[in-house]
């Protein structure tokens, strides 16, 4: 059986919902950040697959993927700076315990 667009979309859907599942169940900030990275990667796979199988005459999907990778790197760096600062002040990176701005 030839590998087509549908096969790659199935992989990307599975990756996306695994990331959502991790984001909903984990309470540790670093592991939640890892789930977000999985979600972004599934979107990248989608862009590349659509570019390859549906719009072979264009390169826009590749450019979107490159920009998403660049923005994901910036986002991860800022998130980790915030996590380290939070840990320094509260000695914990559990999202349930960092509630001092709640009330």
């Amino acid at each position, binding site marked *: 059986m030839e590998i087509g667009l549908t096969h790659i979309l199935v992989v990307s859907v599975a990756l996306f919902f*695994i990331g959502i599942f991790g984001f909903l169940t984990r309470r540790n900030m670093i*592991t939640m950040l890892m789930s977000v990275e*999985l979600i972004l990667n599934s979107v*990248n796979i989608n862009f590349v697959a659509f570019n390859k199988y549906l719009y*072979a005459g264009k390169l826009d999907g590749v*450019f979107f993927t490159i920009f998403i990778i*660049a923005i994901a790197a910036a986002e991860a760096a800022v998130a980790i700076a*915030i996590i380290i600062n939070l840990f320094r002040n509260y000695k914990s990176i559990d999202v349930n315990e960092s509630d001092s701005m709640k009330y």
Partner: protein
Amino acid sequence: MNISTIIFYVLATTIIGGAFLAVTIRKIFRAAVFLLISLIGIAGLYFYLNYNFLASVQIAVYVGGIVVLIIFSIFLTAESGSSMKKPALIRVLFSALATILAGIFTLWIIKWHHFQVNVGGAIEPSVRNMGRQMLSTTEYGYILPFEVVSILLLASMIGCIVIAIKPKA
């Protein structure tokens, strides 16, 4: 079943298995290592689809940058050898229910949607073609987003330093 199909299934198993272990395993350092395996599998998928430049960017930025950053932050914040608390059973149950239902719905849409293939000459995704189109200033060029992303990276770098700097006691 030829060799290309087998390679695809090996890559898919690596990606999905690594991702699943990365979100369920309770030792945080092992979760980071499984995330690394999953990201390498995604780079392999880009190689499989003949996007060589994207695969090398994926390895350089994700595997070489982001995962190393995550592992450093694990060393700086958590005890890397200890296990995390088990999540509450009810939360796992309802999260699994929601994600599985949504996943089945999405797969159902993919199965019945008719994708329209855009006919036209194919462009080879070589570095030469990509560079020429990305930095062109004509209608389909991407020079403006390119510059905006460079400013965003500079701003986020300065922001990180300002956030993470230790205040003078």
